[in-house]
């Protein structure tokens, strides 16, 4: 007979950031039903307001001005509220806020303004936040679905345009397939350890490694399958095939949001499952985790393919899709580094830093594409950047900044992210991965800086629309990118609290 939990065990207070988001989104879904079709800006405003309030609270929690259930468990260990949770909350909410701002006028002028957009976006955000707080494999899975399903729908939001529908269907079919891998992995891990709780898995894995418990191969298979499922979500090679098609077909503001949200969610899950639950799962006690070699090999493949194939792209959205694959590779290096126990904390912190830098930069870059895109979803080619600097100097400057940041040029957020990732990789003795990372960064400079070249040194007629929400989103993203680049200690001080490894 199992112990019946009481209401006090729920500890709802610790889950407030995300549960209030879910509750608010449900209310917004109902409210939106009573908002007339031509006044959907009300829904957008309510969504932005809700995210804004939660973002302020999350920032306060991260700055530890208020301790919002720090280091606590809720729902009998299913939910963990620690510094990592706070950090993922902030990343998810910033992305969501920018996602609403980028989308609003775009949806209006392309005639797909529906209230569901904001509701789905908020649900996906809740999925990311749950992932950052997962203390149990079941929560990891449910959170991943809560993140993915709204994204499938959002990709097809431009109904009945064929490209958008195709992208939604591709994403859905492959995503459902990948979820199957993850569930099978979870089942095998459960079979080996007898639990789905990450802390208990960690203990059982310790017993298995020490030889007190059988099930080593079962656990190995489970870890492998879970890695495949999560690798799909973050677009790691060889599970990246869906990315270019989905990014190209889906409405651009959706891509701006999901390129970051899906990555933040996927890597939060990897951090929780690999760097936390299976951190001590080595072939012999005291060695680096058994999944480390696999992950850094994946990282190398991902960086190589993403960066090399991006060179030949002529469509901006497709180019940034390959670039997002490449960036998944850089973060994978940090995940691999977390397999070495001594470096684990540093590595997970660098994942958080990189995700934050990537969130600001990438949403910004896609926002610029939203500005140049026409109402019929054309003009997203490289040519659309031609002569932007003459027509709109500030917009071009912002785009140039985002491109520098994606390349990883100093004084931008991207540089800070790469710096900490490579530092963690060197500390964990992953020299090949770090070397490939640096070399492919140089390769990536070619296609990122070509965009800058097109903007500043070529001439063309330019037609751009930047209504104020979009302009503000680009402004916030570029200020954030610059600020993190020049004053990185703002962020590094915040992430210093993050420790995922279980002690003792």
């Amino acid at each position, binding site marked *: 007979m199992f112990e*019946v*939990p*009481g*209401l006090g*065990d729920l500890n709802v207070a610790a889950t407030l950031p995300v549960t209030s988001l879910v509750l608010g989104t*449900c209310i917004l*879904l*109902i409210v939106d*039903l009573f908002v007339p079709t031509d006044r959907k800006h009300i829904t957008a405003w309510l969504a932005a307001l809700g995210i804004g309030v939660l973002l302020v609270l999350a920032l306060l929690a991260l700055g530890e001005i208020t301790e919002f259930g720090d280091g606590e468990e809720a729902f009998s260990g299913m939910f963990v509220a620690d510094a990592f949770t706070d950090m993922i909350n902030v990343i998810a909410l910033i992305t969501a806020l920018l996602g609403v701002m980028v989308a609003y006028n775009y949806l209006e002028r392309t005639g797909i303004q529906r209230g569901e957009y904001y509701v789905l976006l908020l649900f996906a955000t809740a999925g990311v936040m749950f992932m950052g707080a997962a203390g149990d494999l079941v929560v990891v899975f449910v959170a991943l679905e809560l993140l993915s399903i709204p994204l499938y729908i959002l990709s097809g939001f431009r109904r009945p345009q064929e490209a958008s529908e195709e992208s939604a269907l591709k994403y859905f079919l492959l995503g459902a397939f990948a979820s199957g891998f993850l569930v099978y992995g979870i089942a095998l891990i459960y079979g080996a350890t007898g639990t789905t709780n990450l802390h208990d898995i960690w203990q059982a894995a310790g017993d298995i490694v020490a030889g007190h418990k*059988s099930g080593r191969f079962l656990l190995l298979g489970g870890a492998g399958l879970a890695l495949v499922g999560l690798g799909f979500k973050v677009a790691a090679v060889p599970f990246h095939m869906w990315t270019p098609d989905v990014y190209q077909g889906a409405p651009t503001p959706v891509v701006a949001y999901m390129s970051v949200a899906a990555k933040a969610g996927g890597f939060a899950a990897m951090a929780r499952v690999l760097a936390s639950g299976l951190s001590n799962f080595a072939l012999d006690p005291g060695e680096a985790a058994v999944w480390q070699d696999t992950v850094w090999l994946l990282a190398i493949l991902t960086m190589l393919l993403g960066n090399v194939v991006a060179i030949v792209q002529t469509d901006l959205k497709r180019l940034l899709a390959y670039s997002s694959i490449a960036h998944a590779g850089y973060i994978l290096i940090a995940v691999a580094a977390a397999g070495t126990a001594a470096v684990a904390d540093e590595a997970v912190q660098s994942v958080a830093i990189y995700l934050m830098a990537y969130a600001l930069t990438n949403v910004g870059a896609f926002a610029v594409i939203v500005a140049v895109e026409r109402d019929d979803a054309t003009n997203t080619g490289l040519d659309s950047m031609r002569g932007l600097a003459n027509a709109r100097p500030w917009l071009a400057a912002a785009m140039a900044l985002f491109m520098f940041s994606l390349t990883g040029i100093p004084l931008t957020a991207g540089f800070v992210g790469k710096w900490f990732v490579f530092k963690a990789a060197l500390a964990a003795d992953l020299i090949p991965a770090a070397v490939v990372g640096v070399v492919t960064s140089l390769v990536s400079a070619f296609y990122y800086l070509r965009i800058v070249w097109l903007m500043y040194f070529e001439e063309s007629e330019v037609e751009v629309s930047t209504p104020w929400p979009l302009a503000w989103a680009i402004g916030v993203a570029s200020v954030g990118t610059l600020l993190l680049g020049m004053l990185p200690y703002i962020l590094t001080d915040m992430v210093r609290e993050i420790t995922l490894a279980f002690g003792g």
Partner: protein
Amino acid sequence: MTLNEWIFVGLFLMAGWMLPVVPLLLGYWLAPRRPNPVKKQIYECGVQTVGSAWVQFRAQYYVFALVFVAFDVELVFLFPWALAYNKLGLFALFEMAVFILLLVVALVYTWRKGALEWS
């Protein structure tokens, strides 16, 4: 698991395969075969078959199907909950309230969207 325990898994697997295969084979070997045109007709619940199967039909009812699945699963949860209610106490009441509330939100949404009207 030790190797001996795996043998049971193998036995179960074989027994599982035999359960459908053996009756099928028995029927194949033992049944007399005297076909006639009526017997060879496509079976459609006793009704005479009309036209081709390759026709377009309205997929409108998928919304009903979705709503049905949602509430079907709700019942699957509700039933054991109601049976064990006395032992579970306030905690379970709270959990179930949250669960049903979320489903009600979905129902209100489908209702207001007009998805429940057949037109």
